[in-house]
Each structure stands twice: as structure tokens, then as C-alpha cells.
């Protein structure tokens, strides 16, 4: 605890000092050069894409014309993380926690600002990835290498052309597929083949083929296979308060094996064409063990999971005249999960869950142009329709739970207005969600309506400084499990309500002919979740739990990021970025449980550290680039009763990665990475020990030099 506090104070002090220096520098009148660009009507599907491709940027808050707090992971930083999953890569961002059950195949989800996993919408190329059954999207299955950019928007994105679903998301993760970049000489496209191998018996061959057609269409085809036995050693150690060892033992984590295959195909419209469109087909299959909690006398489980996810999506956008833009999008999904627990020592389960889904979206935007006093107005209307259902089948008739067959129709719409005046811009949105649910056993249709506002505003008083403020409300709809799971589910559940308030700013300046770039971003936030869905004990007996809207959480905190890029020479760059997050998320559910030592009232909610931070150092010199990532997470508690017995100790990891191109052999690249160098034994989820030091080596062949 002391070290965490010391570190956080140290961080705070240095950040405050740096801030003071920059504020003085920014006040200098010489920098009042550019004004806030207020032109509208630019293709907003891919904002700031160029910048992030050109710079060796790590995670940056890209100063946006729209007032969202954005962090983006792209360029060579993303390349350094290409052996990791999207969830692991996102741990270098501020203001989120990665829930990791450990190992290559372990479930990995992200929790933004302690709101809970399902408050964050996950989007791939603007289309939602969702799981209506349990609300969790496993970001551990997505390989970073498949994406050009991974972005996190605190409080949701604020693009005028985004779908109603994106407006409704409390926070959003946007993953953008790699669009091929052809040199002029590349007539026939390029092929990229890679092989990665490393700890846990991991072998991962992948191939990518990029093709440009005569009219300028681009087609990419990716296929990757991953196999790992998933075994790793972990250490269990406890000491007496005097430091002497109570026990110290090493064991092997079993049951984390995985075989997964992924294939995807992307078709992109020509860059110059008036209508922008993009289509994607995606197939993912996996067969994996589910590692169990490590408890006394039990060292593994025989639970297994098989997945088959197939989806096809496309979107099309065109501006008619110079005022009206239309965007149409659609997606069809078929997801199948086969869960087995063949262990005859426990309840035998063999069940298959199939979730077909359909998603359609339309966005209309009208730019009204210059109005009185030179203000610009824009309006947009976004509507989404989604159909979700869940089929379940069980090999055995007896295991508990009658099989329900829920269906859900969702209609979402958003009305957006935007006003820009000089260096100030405000976006106001009302989004409305209508859901209609029914099941075979409960054919009576449940209808729910919710209307929520979003107001976001940004001001750029100086070219290098932008300030933002946001107020929004969003809902987290109950999942099928929460509503309909046998006995535990509760059909009268309401969605969780969340009010978010946030203020922040970005500052970025370059010095000495752009040799030095400093950027800093800070956000302070406050949010209040009511009607939080909590499993409430329902007396004694087998069906102990009942889902009820009884939780209340009140949180406040800050997210800070600082970044320095130093271009030492034309070829050599240093890029240092650091982030720190503080969050105090109080459980305000039960005001009677207020015992100062054992009570849950005003206790920090489970698994959420008050302090978390990280440091990334990226050094590139020509074809060699080295990255170092440190992440640290402060103490946490298993329960809102923050007792010493429920305390989870702090942990931190150091990762190093090296990318290397052989001189004069441009078609060959090597990569080597070592994660958790210090061999720290830690747990993100209690009783799920994480791997100690592990390695990943890679080799990549390219038919043409790029990226």
C-alpha cells in the first residue's frame, strides 16, 4: 500500500510540475497561430487515421473536433503489441481494468472506470459486437495484429455519423480493420506470412493477402491458427507477518489449452470513390479448456468450451450534394457456444447456446452550413434495429434449468444536433431505446422504453489546448441470463442507469522544429449508477440467488496521460508515455451495512483498484524498435467489505518487446517479446493465477515493404 501511495504521489507531483511548465509555455502569445478548424462535412468515418499511421504514436488522446475523450492505439506501438490480444493491449490505456482469467485462452474482458463490463460497447468497424446472453465480449479472442487501430472512448464516441447503438454506449471500444496501403508499384497486391511461437506451447501461423483491383477496390484476406497447450507454472506463497514463510509451493496450471482458427475477408471501396463502403466476413472457431479457480485440493477442471462465430457485415456511406450524408449498415451474426463439464465429480453439463442476430442501421446527417454569427449547424438522425435470440439445447435432460428461448427486438434511435461557433463546439443528443422481449415459457411481451440525453462540449482556447465537458445518461440492459436464467433470472428487471459527468482537456505542443512533442491529457469524472443489477441471496436452498435492481455505486476519479516524443535524429525516436488513474467507487447499496470495519456501505467496489498506472517507452532507430511497458495496479478487495481478509495485493508487470528488420532484407522481420520479466506472481481475478515470465518470438515474411 505504501509503495502504491508513494508512487501515486510521485506521479501526481511530476504531472503537476509538468503541467505548470506547459501552461506557462502555452500562454506565450507566439503560439496563437491557428484557429480551431470549424469546417464540417469531412468524411468522419476515419478521423485522424493518417496521423496515427505516420507517427510512431503509442496511446494518444487524439485532439478531436468532437468532444470525446479518445485514446488510440496504433502504428508501431500496436505492432509491438501484435502478439497480444486486444484486451491485453488495452491495458496500456488509462481508466480501464482488464479482467483476465489467465493464460492464452482465458476470458479477457475490460471494465471501464469501474462501471462493469457490460457498460462498454465494443464495435468492430462501427458494428456492434455483443452478447445478449451474458453481456460480456471476450476481447481475448481478437488478435491486435488484425487491426489498424484500437480506440477507447470514455463516455462514448461522438462522431456525427455514428449509429444509434454507438450513441447509446456508455463507453466504447472501436476496433478498426487494417486497410491495405499500396505503394504505386504494387499491382498485384502483397502477401504477408508470419509465424509466432512461444511459451505455453503456443504456435500461431498466420497469412494475409492484400489485393488491389483495377477500379481501386481493395480486398484483404486473413487466416490465422493458434494452438497452445496452455500449461504454466504458478507459485502459491504466504508469509507470517514477521516475513517468515508459512507456505511456498509451485504448481502447474492445467486445462488452459486452446486451438483456434480465425479467417476474415475485408473488401474496401476505392479511396477516391464518392460512396465509401466496406464489407467484412469473419469466421472464428475455437476449442478450449476453461481453467478453473485454484482452491485447496483442486488443481484443475475438465470444463471445456467450443465456439463458432460467424458474421458478415457491411456499411455504405455517401454524401449527396454538399449537405446531406447517408450511411447504411447491416450485420448478420451466428454465434454458437458449446459448454461441457464432463466431470462426474460435479454436475455434468453439456449444453449448446446458439445466438443468431441481425443488426441494421441508418444514419442521416444534414449540414446546414453557416448561420447567424458564423455558427455552423449539423443535424443527424440515427436509427438501429436489432434482433437477438438465444437457442439452448442440452445433451442431458436432467440438469437444472428449463430451457427458455428468449427473443428480443431492439429499436434504437438518436437525434443529434451539433453547433460550432469559432473555437467552440457542442453536440447534444437524445437517444431512445425500445426493447421488446418474450420467451416460449413467458410469451407475454415485455416492452421497455428509455430516453437519455447526451451533451458534449469542447472549447479550444489555444491551438494547443482543448477543453471538454460531458454529461450523459446511459442504460445497461439486463442480459438474457439475468432476465430468464432458471430461478435466478428476474423478468421484472429494469436496466441499470448511469449518469456520467466529466470534464477534461488535452494539451499538445511541439518544440525545436518538431523535435520534441509534449502532450498531456487529464479528465476528471463522476458517475452514479443506480438500479445496478445485483445477485441477491434468496434464503437458503439450491436457488440461492435472485437478480434485483438494488445496487448503487457512486464513483469519482481522474485519468491522466502524459506523453513525450523526442525525434533525436531523422531515424531515431524516443516516445515515452505514462498514464495514471485514480478511482474511488463507493458501494452505496445498503446504508444499514455501515460497520466501519466490516460494512459494505461506502466500501470500494470489488476488484477495482483505487490507483493504477503504466509507463511505456518506445525507442525506434531505423529498422530496430524496442518497447518497454510497465503496468501497475494498486490494492483491491474481493468484496465491498474492505476487510484485510478480502484484500488483494497490488501487482505490476514489466514487458519488453523488440522488432527487428534485417538490413537489406526488407522482406523479413523478426520480433521477440518477454512478458512479466520479473516473474511476478499475481492474480487479476482471485484464485486465477496469472503466468509468470513468458516469451513470444515471431518471424514475418512480406512480399513488399510496409508498416
Amino acid at each position, binding site marked *: 500500500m505504501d509503495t502504491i501511495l508513494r508512487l501515486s504521489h510521485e506521479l501526481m507531483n511530476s504531472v503537476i510540475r509538468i503541467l505548470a511548465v506547459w501552461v506557462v509555455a502555452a500562454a506565450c502569445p507566439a503560439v496563437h497561430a491557428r484557429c480551431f478548424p470549424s469546417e464540417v462535412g469531412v468524411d468522419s468515418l476515419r478521423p485522424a487515421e493518417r496521423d496515427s499511421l505516420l507517427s510512431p504514436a503509442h496511446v494518444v488522446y487524439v485532439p478531436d473536433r468532437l468532444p470525446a475523450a479518445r485514446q488510440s492505439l496504433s502504428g508501431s506501438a500496436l505492432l509491438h503489441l501484435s502478439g497480444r490480444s486486444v484486451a491485453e493491449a488495452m491495458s496500456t490505456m488509462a481508466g480501464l481494468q482488464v479482467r483476465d482469467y489467465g493464460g492464452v485462452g482465458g476470458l479477457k474482458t475490460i471494465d471501464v472506470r469501474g462501471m462493469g463490463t457490460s457498460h462498454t460497447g465494443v464495435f468492430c468497424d462501427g458494428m456492434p459486437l455483443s452478447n445478449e446472453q451474458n453481456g460480456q465480449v471476450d476481447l481475448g479472442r481478437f488478435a491486435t495484429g488484425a487491426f489498424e487501430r484500437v480506440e477507447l472512448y470514455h463516455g462514448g464516441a461522438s462522431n456525427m455519423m455514428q449509429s444509434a447503438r454507438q450513441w447509446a454506449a456508455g463507453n466504447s471500444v472501436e476496433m478498426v480493420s487494417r486497410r491495405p496501403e499500396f505503394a504505386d508499384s504494387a499491382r498485384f497486391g502483397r502477401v504477408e506470412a508470419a509465424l509466432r511461437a512461444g511459451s505455453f506451447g503456443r504456435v500461431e501461423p498466420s497469412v494475409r493477402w492484400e489485393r488491389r483491383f483495377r477500379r481501386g477496390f481493395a480486398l484483404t484476406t486473413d487466416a490465422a491458427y493458434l494452438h497452445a497447450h496452455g500449461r504454466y507454472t504458478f507459485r502459491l506463497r504466504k508469509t507470517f507477518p514477521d516475513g517468515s514463510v508459512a507456505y511456498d509451493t509451485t504448481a502447474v496450471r492445467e486445462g488452459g489449452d486452446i486451438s483456434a482458427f480465425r479467417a476474415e475477408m475485408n473488401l474496401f471501396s476505392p479511396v477516391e470513390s464518392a460512396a465509401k463502403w466496406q464489407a467484412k466476413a469473419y469466421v472464428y472457431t475455437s476449442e478450449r479448456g476453461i481453467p478453473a479457480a485454484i482452491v485447496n485440493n483442486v488443481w484443475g477442471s475438465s470444463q471445456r468450451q467450443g465456439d463458432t462465430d460467424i458474421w458478415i457485415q457491411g456499411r455504405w456511406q455517401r454524401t449527396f450534394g454538399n449537405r446531406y450524408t447517408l450511411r447504411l449498415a447491416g450485420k448478420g451474426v451466428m454465434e454458437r457456444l458449446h459448454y461441457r463439464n464432463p466431470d462426474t465429480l460435479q454436475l455434468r453439463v453439456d449444453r449448446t447456446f446458439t445466438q443468431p442476430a441481425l443488426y441494421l442501421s441508418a444514419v442521416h446527417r444534414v449540414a446546414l452550413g453557416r448561420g447567424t454569427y458564423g455558427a455552423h449547424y449539423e443535424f443527424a438522425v440515427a436509427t438501429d434495429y436489432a434482433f437477438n435470440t438465444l437457442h439452448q439445447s442440452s445433451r442431458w435432460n436432467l440438469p437444472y434449468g428449463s430451457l427458455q428461448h428468449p427473443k428480443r427486438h431492439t429499436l434504437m434511435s438518436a437525434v443529434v444536433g451539433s453547433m460550432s461557433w469559432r473555437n467552440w463546439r457542442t453536440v447534444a443528443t437524445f437517444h431512445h431505446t425500445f426493447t421488446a422481449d418474450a420467451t416460449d415459457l413467458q410469451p407475454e411481451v415485455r416492452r421497455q422504453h428509455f430516453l437519455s440525453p447526451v451533451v458534449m462540449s469542447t472549447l479550444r482556447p489555444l491551438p494547443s489546448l482543448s477543453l471538454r465537458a460531458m454529461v450523459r445518461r446511459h442504460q445497461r440492459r439486463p442480459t438474457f441470463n439475468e432476465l430468464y436464467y432458471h430461478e435466478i433470472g428476474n423478468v421484472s428487471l429494469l436496466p441499470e442507469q448511469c449518469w456520467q459527468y466529466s470534464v477534461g482537456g488535452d494539451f499538445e505542443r511541439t518544440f525545436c522544429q518538431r523535435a520534441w512533442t509534449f502532450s498531456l491529457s487529464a479528465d476528471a469524472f463522476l458517475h452514479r449508477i443506480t438500479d445496478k443489477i445485483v445477485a441477491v441471496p434468496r434464503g437458503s436452498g439450491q436457488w440461492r440467488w435472485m437478480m434485483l435492481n438494488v445496487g448503487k455505486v457512486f464513483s469519482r476519479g481522474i485519468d491522466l496521460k502524459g506523453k513525450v516524443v523526442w525525434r533525436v535524429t531523422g531515424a531515431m525516436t524516443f516516445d515515452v508515455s505514462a498514464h495514471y488513474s485514480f478511482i474511488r467507487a463507493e458501494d452505496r447499496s445498503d446504508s444499514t451495512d455501515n460497520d466501519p470495519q466490516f460494512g459494505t456501505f461506502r466500501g470500494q467496489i470489488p476488484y477495482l483498484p483505487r490507483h493504477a498506472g503504466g509507463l511505456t517507452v518506445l525507442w525506434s532507430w531505423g529498422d530496430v524498435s524496442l518497447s518497454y511497458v510497465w503496468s501497475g495496479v494498486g490494492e483491491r478487495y474481493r468484496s465491498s467489505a474492505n476487510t484485510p481478509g478480502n484484500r488483494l495485493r497490488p501487482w*505490476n508487470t514489466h514487458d519488453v518487446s523488440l522488432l527487428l528488420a534485417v538490413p537489406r532484407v526488407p522482406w523479413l522481420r523478426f520480433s521477440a517479446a518477454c512478458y512479466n520479466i520479473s516473474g511476478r506472481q499475481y492474480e487479476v481475478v482471485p*484464485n486465477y493465477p496469472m503466468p509468470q515470465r513468458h516469451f513470444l518470438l515471431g518471424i514475418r515474411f512480406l512480399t513488399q515493404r510496409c508498416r
Partner: protein
Amino acid sequence: MFRKILMFTVVALAFAACNDDDTIDDGGNERPGDNTSYPERLYVLCEGLMGSNQSSIDCYDFATGTYQRSAYVQANPNVVLELGDVGNDIQQYGGSLWAVINGSNKVEVMDVSTLRRRGQVDIPNCRCVAFDGGYAYVTSYAGPVDDADGGQRGYVAKVDTATLSVVDTLHVGRQPEGLAVVDGKLYVVNSGGYCMPAYENTLSVIDLSDFSTRKTLPVAVNMQRILVDAQGMLWVNATGNYGDIAPSLCRVDPKSEQVTTLDLPVAAMTIQGDSLYIVSHQWDFVLNKGVPASAVVDVRKAAIVSSQMVDPAVLEGMSPYGVAVHPSTHDIFVSDAGDYVSPGSLYCFGSDGALKWDVRTGNIPGHLLIVGGK
């Protein structure tokens, strides 16, 4: 700037080098009661949430009035991963204390006064324990699987208490829970808890002379625990089917096989003298909350003597989950599981039902046992 980066790096590395070890859980102790001349101890087996490995044994010493949390860890700090996952039953036999740790697939055997570990018996998915003639009998869900319908029978393991080894097993019905011995016969409750809606409703009657099943006796749907009173009558609580069949308390005469049913929900029960003490926690679907209640039953008359065993004002808001009664003072101990994810509480009431004291326990205090001290 470089100095700052350097400073930051140094701080980061220093932080990384520091070793914040996990220390054994001290648990802490309190002194809620007073010094008394009673030599007994009250053991509280806390279940802990499934998969959390947070099962623990707390100990209240009547002589000193002190309450020690995590007493098992204090007595056995070197046991890797402590007591284990989900303690389901705790019983005394001679100088040993037997704790059935369901999620850890084992029965932990300890010295009854020091809690020092004597050994363990590996029994998968074990539930409850009873003793007779040098043997322990442990119920387990993990019997043979019927591939036709996927159903699974349970079994009873016969354990030699001297060698702590399983000497025999016998298949019983589905998901067996509590068990009790009367006149050389073992009565095992078959719950069928995994077989919703086809719950079991029988007791398996096992002759201990040859360890074979004599008959199965239908009593009530989805039974859980079984106790024996001074007259040799069996008391079984049935949970019902959470639907049209309500929970009940049944008295079974092992000789005539006559069943007397009381419409009384039971979360936990204990017998002291001729009184059966009951706490319950029934879900009210209208209010959407649990309603705690308590009662005392006269076991000779099979009639409810009091439906307010303890002060209802104190009981209100509790999730009562365990009960014990001191043999001499008749003080009533009720454990409260709270929200099942944070530490529970133990309440001590006088024999008149008035609150004497309360103390915080481990997570989900479920099973209370008073043992004669020395």
C-alpha cells in the same frame, strides 16, 4: 525532462522490486462475551462463496468470551490454500473435529480442541458426515452416472476414523445430503437437488451391520438435513420444489415409519433437550426480499411452541443461516450470512430471545457446532 523521466523510471523500478507478500489471514479476534465457567467452544464453519477458497472456521471460547476469526489458519498456517472451498458440514467425533469441505473434495479432520490438522479424507463432492462405531459416513454427489438420462446417483463413503481411509462405499439416491444413525441404521436424505423438477423424496435406510440398503422411505420433496432427538425420532427439513410444494419440517418415526409434517420452512435447525430450534429465510415474491423467521418445536408433541425464538426486531434484515444452542445456558446462537459475499455475523441471544451480543464472522457462516471443552 530527462531527469523527470529518469526519476519516474527509478520510482517505477523501485516499486517493482518491492515485494508485497501475501500474509496469512490473521482474522482478528474480539471479546464480545464475558468470562464464564462453561468450558465449551462454539465452532462456526463459514462456507465462503463457491470458487473463492474462503471457507474458514471461527471459534468462540465460552470460558474467555473471545471470538477468534480464521481459527483454522491460526492453528495450521502451513497448509497450502488454507481450509478450502465451501465448508458444508462440521461434526465432532471423540477428540476429532470433522469438517466436510465440498468444493475442495475432502473431509478435513482436526483435533477438536486445538484445531490442529490430523489429516484429510479425499471424497469428491462430499456433503455431510455422521458417525457410528469407529466409522464415519460421508455423503457424496459423485456416484455412478446413468448414461441413459444423464442422471447421477450419490453414494455414502464409509471411512475408518483411525486410518482416515475409505473402506467401503454404497450407492444411494440422487444428490444425498444429511445423514443420521439410529439403532444401527443409517438414514440418508436423497434431495435430487440437481434434478429439478424431478426432486427426490426419499430416505435411504442402510443397515450398518452389513452396510447395505434395506429400503427407501418416501417422506417429502427435496429434503436437506436430518437430526435425531432423544426419543430416537428423525427430524428432516424439506425445501419443497420452490413452486407449488411448500417447504416443510417432518418427523419420521423410524420404527413405525409414520411421518408427521409441520408446515414450517427451515434454513437451519438444532435439537437441545426436547426442543427443536429453527431459523428460516423464505423469499417473498411480492416484496422481492427474504423474510427471516425463527421457531421452537416441542419434539415430543411435534408442535410449535414458539414462533418467536429470538427477538424479531433483531432478526429482521438478517439472512439467518445457522443455529446452535448452548447445552447449559440455553443461549441461542444464530448466524447471519448477510449478502453472502461479504463477512457475516453471529448473534448471541439469551434463552428468552433477547440479544446479548453480536460479532462479525467469515463469509457465509453456515454451520455452528458447540463442543464440550476441556
